[in-house]
Each structure stands twice: as C-alpha cells, then as structure tokens.
C-alpha cells in the first residue's frame, strides 16, 4: 500500500541500477551504457543544467552590490510582497480544497466520481493565457459583472484580486491530485474503526488521517507554492503591469528584461531559481522519506 505511494512519488529505488547491472540478462554492453549515458546526460546538461547556471552567472555579472541593489529597490520589494501575498492566499485555499475533495472522493461512494476527478485536473490542461482570459471575461470592464463592479468601485482585473484568482486557478489541482490517489489506496478501515470507537470526525481526521497523508500533503503544498510564486502567463493577462502595484516577481523580471536591465532581471530571476531549487530539494527529501517508510510498513 505505502509502496504504491513511494512508487507514485517516483522515488528512485536506491540500488536498483545494480540490480539490473548485476543480472547478465539485463546488463547492457559497456559501449551501450556509455553511449546512452553520454547522449542522455549531454542533452540534460544542454537543456536543463545550462539555463540554471546561466541565471546565476548573469545575475552576478555586475557584481554583488548591483545584485543587492536590484533586489532592494522599491519596485522589486513591492513585487516580492505581492508574490508572497498571492501565494499566502492561494496555497491555503487550495490546500483546504484538496483535503475536502480527497476526503469526499476517497471516503465515500457517489455517482460521477470519475468525472469529478477529471474536472479537478482540468486547470493543468488549460493554457495559462486562457486561464487569465476567463477572469477578464467575467470581471473585466466588458465582462459579465464588470459594469456592476465598476459602479461599486471594486477593481478585480488589473488589480490584486485578479492576480490572486488567476494564481488560485493555475495551482488548483496540486494538493488534490497528490491526496486523492493516496487516500483512495489507503481505504476507509482505519477511519471507520476510529469513529466506531467513539472518536469525533475532527479527532479522526487529526489523529488517523493526517498522519497517514502528511508527506503527500506537504509534497502537494510545496509544488503548489512553487507554481503560485512563479506563475507568469495567467497573471500577466490580469495584472495590467502597474509598477509597484500589480507586478509580481515574474512580471517584474519581464519588465526589467524588456528594458534591457539584464543584470537586474536575472538578479530577481535568481531568487525564483533559488525557490525552485529549494522546492526540488524538499521534494527529493519527501520522496526519500516515503521510500524509507515503505519497507517498515510492509512488514508491520
């Protein structure tokens, strides 16, 4: 059961390579091995590693002082604040949604469940630009409730609420899609036992369900957060690019870049790249934890 979790998380099975390399039937000739590794790793270096290195090299091209200056100027600080705010609203909301969706789907039977799961995944297959557009069609000046909003002096599009909404949309499925398959695989026996023994619903969730799903939950949250802070396309459509007001970090990077302030653009970009690296590190740690827990639970 928990083994499925580890495999789903894509945990590298440590020592699996030696399993294949020790077996005569699955061992490749040395030249095949070096050709496969050579080509694969060259491709990896060219398309993934090089861009990552370039971000940091370009960021420090004009030295440490210029780097700090680019990060501490007022527009950059306001972009950082807005990015943190958008993530601080969208991640908890999608976390609550993810838990509620997974609880209803995994713990109960009802018709249309498969369709519901497909709908939850929908934002992943929609282009970010379309994700921004849909809110313009509803809240924009010519949108469904645009006239009502402007009559009451409420701004959604080209303002912070629009940015938050677009961010919620693009990060919508992250927590739910980690929790649903895991909680479905775990079944209902433990929770039903707890309730039968007199635990309240909340007690059951805190003491039984949460410990079982905590790593998948964290996994979903960090991926959700990375996307929330890094979203560009959807936010770009609804933001209006007002400096110091509706610029998030990725939009600030774009503006600096288009003004040929390359070192400053890459300085802000390097913060986002750092966030990506931390995200990957936490993700790798969680996968490692899941692969460690799996064998223990199998024997118990």
């Amino acid at each position, binding site marked *: 059961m928990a083994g499925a979790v580890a495999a789903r998380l*894509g945990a590298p099975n440590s020592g699996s390579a030696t*399993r294949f390399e020790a077996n005569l039937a699955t061992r490749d000739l040395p030249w095949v091995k070096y050709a*496969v590794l050579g080509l694969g790793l060259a491709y990896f270096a060219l398309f*993934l590693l090089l861009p990552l290195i370039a971000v940091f090299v370009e960021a420090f091209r004009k030295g440490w002082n210029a780097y700090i200056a680019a990060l501490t100027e007022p527009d950059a600080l306001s972009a950082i604040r807005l990015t943190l705010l958008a993530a601080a609203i969208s991640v908890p909301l999608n976390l609550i949604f993810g838990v509620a969706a997974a609880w209803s789907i995994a*713990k109960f039977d009802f018709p249309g469940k498969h369709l519901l799961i497909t709908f939850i995944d929908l934002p992943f297959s929609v282009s970010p630009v379309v994700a921004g557009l*849909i*809110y313009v069609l*509803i809240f924009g000046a010519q949108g469904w409730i645009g006239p009502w909003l402007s009559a009451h002096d409420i701004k959604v599009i080209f303002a912070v609420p629009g940015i938050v909404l677009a961010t919620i949309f693009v990060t919508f499925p992250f927590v739910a899609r980690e929790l649903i398959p895991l909680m479905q695989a775990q079944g209902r026996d433990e929770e039903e036992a707890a309730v039968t023994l007199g635990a309240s619903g909340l007690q059951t969730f805190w003491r039984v369900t949460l410990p079982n799903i905590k790593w998948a939950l964290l996994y979903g949250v960090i991926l959700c957060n990375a996307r929330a802070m890094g979203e*560009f*396309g959807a936010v770009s459509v609804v933001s209006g690019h007002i400096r110091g007001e509706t610029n998030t970090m990725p939009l600030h990077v774009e503006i600096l870049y288009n003004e040929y302030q390359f070192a400053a653009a890459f300085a802000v970009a390097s913060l986002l790249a750092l966030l990506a690296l931390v995200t990957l590190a936490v993700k790798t740690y969680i996968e490692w934890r899941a692969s460690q827990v799996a064998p223990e639970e199998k024997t118990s």
Partner: protein
Amino acid sequence: MAYAHARRVLPGFGLSLGFTLAYLSLIVLIPLSAVFIKSAGMGWQAFLDAATGPRVVASYKLSFGTSLLAAAINVVFGLLLAWGLVRYTFPGKKLVDALIDLPFALPTAVAGIALTAIYAKNGWVGQLFEPFGIKIAFTPIGILIALIFIGLPFIVRTVQPILEDLDAEFEEAAASLGATRLQTFRRVVFPTLLPALLTGFALAFARAVGEYGSVIFIAGNIPFVSEITPLMIITKLEQYDYEGATAVASVMLIVSFLLLLVINGLQAWTSRRTGREA
C-alpha cells in the same frame, strides 16, 4: 451503492463534497464556461473569421508543429535519460534525478530569459552556431528549444516508474531463448514501454501547445513567423478585441479537452499493459 450508503459511518460527506463542488464551480467551471458562452454569442461567421484569420492560422501551424517536434525529440532523449537513471549507476545520479523536475519548479519567465541568454547570437551556445549563419533565439528554432525544456520531465517521469517495475524475468527468458540484447529490447522491453512513452508524448505536447512564459522571450514574436497561439490571444486582448481573443481561446480549450481524453485513454492502456496504476 445502496449498501455503501447504508453503512456510511464516516462524517463530513455533505460538507466536503458540497465545498468541493462549490469551489470547483466558482474557480474553474463557471469561468471556463464564459469562453464558450461568449463565443456562442458572437455568431458563427464572426467566430470563424476570428478563429481562422491568416495570422491566427499561421500561429496554429507554428504552435502545433513545434510542440509535436519538441515532444518527439523529448521521447527519444527522455527514454535515454530514464534508461540511464534506472539501469545504470553513475556519479551524480541522485542530483540528475532530482534536477529532471526543474522545468516543473522553475518559473517559466526565468526559464525564458535564461534560454534566450544562452541561445542568443552572443550567448554560450548561440555563438557556436553564429559563424554558420544559424540563428536560434528569435526564430522558430528558439521556440523549439523552450518547448524541449518544459516537456522533458513529462517523458522521463512517465517512463521511469514503468522501467523500475519491469521484472528482469522477461529479459532473462528472452536471453535464454537466444535473443540478442537488441532483439530483447525491440520485442520485449519496448512494447511494455510504448503506452508510457505515448502518454509522456501527449502530456508534453499538451503542455507545449499552451505554453507562454518560456517561449515569448526567445521567440522573437514576428507575425506569421514566430508568433505562438497563446501570444495571439494576448495580442488581441491588448487591442481590446475580446471576441477575437475568446474565439482563439475556445479553439485552444477544445484542443485541450481532446488531448485530456487522449491522455486518459493512454493512461488506462498503460495500466492495463503493465498492471500498474497510472
């Protein structure tokens, strides 16, 4: 079903499902339906004119063409990488494995400006091609590079678990029956991997068609040459042509829904072929 209802002991069904449906409708379903309702209100001729104008059609060809090519290239090299990560030991393997997901975690705008810096004519890689008169950044080749970047993890991460689960027994049987390694790969291993490879291809293609952030910096955005479809939506919006933007968006949404169906079918095929939950 009636039996399950009868023995429903756990609390919170109404609350959790009610919240799920309300939140899903408010954030996703109602806003998405706005695209189709607005399109339907345009009238067929106006819709067709907006969705099939020559500049828009050129963007479809470019977006779909480069997305297909990028996904195809990624299938080949993604399989090599997944094979290397599962079957061999090499120094730095854990680091490579962790960094494969970089395109999922790195904001697209950051990837976009970094790729542009590398592949521009004075960049690390671009200057190697400059003497031969080959321009990468600000041409469709640049778009291809960006789409390769964002698509790679889809292939590796769908093929890798299937490769890990693959029992050595089948290859042992093939070897003991006198098959060469190449025959074993072609006849035994590859057919098992095929559904996963196609799933990865479809996922990478679906993502690439809608991709915006990593592409616009490197594309050059020249009308009829290097304008991708998502950019057409932005361009029309900036000209306050909401109907035109919506028409193009509805074409993209329909393509997304069709791809979603294809991907669901492929995932079902993968789990039937390998006995593994996709």
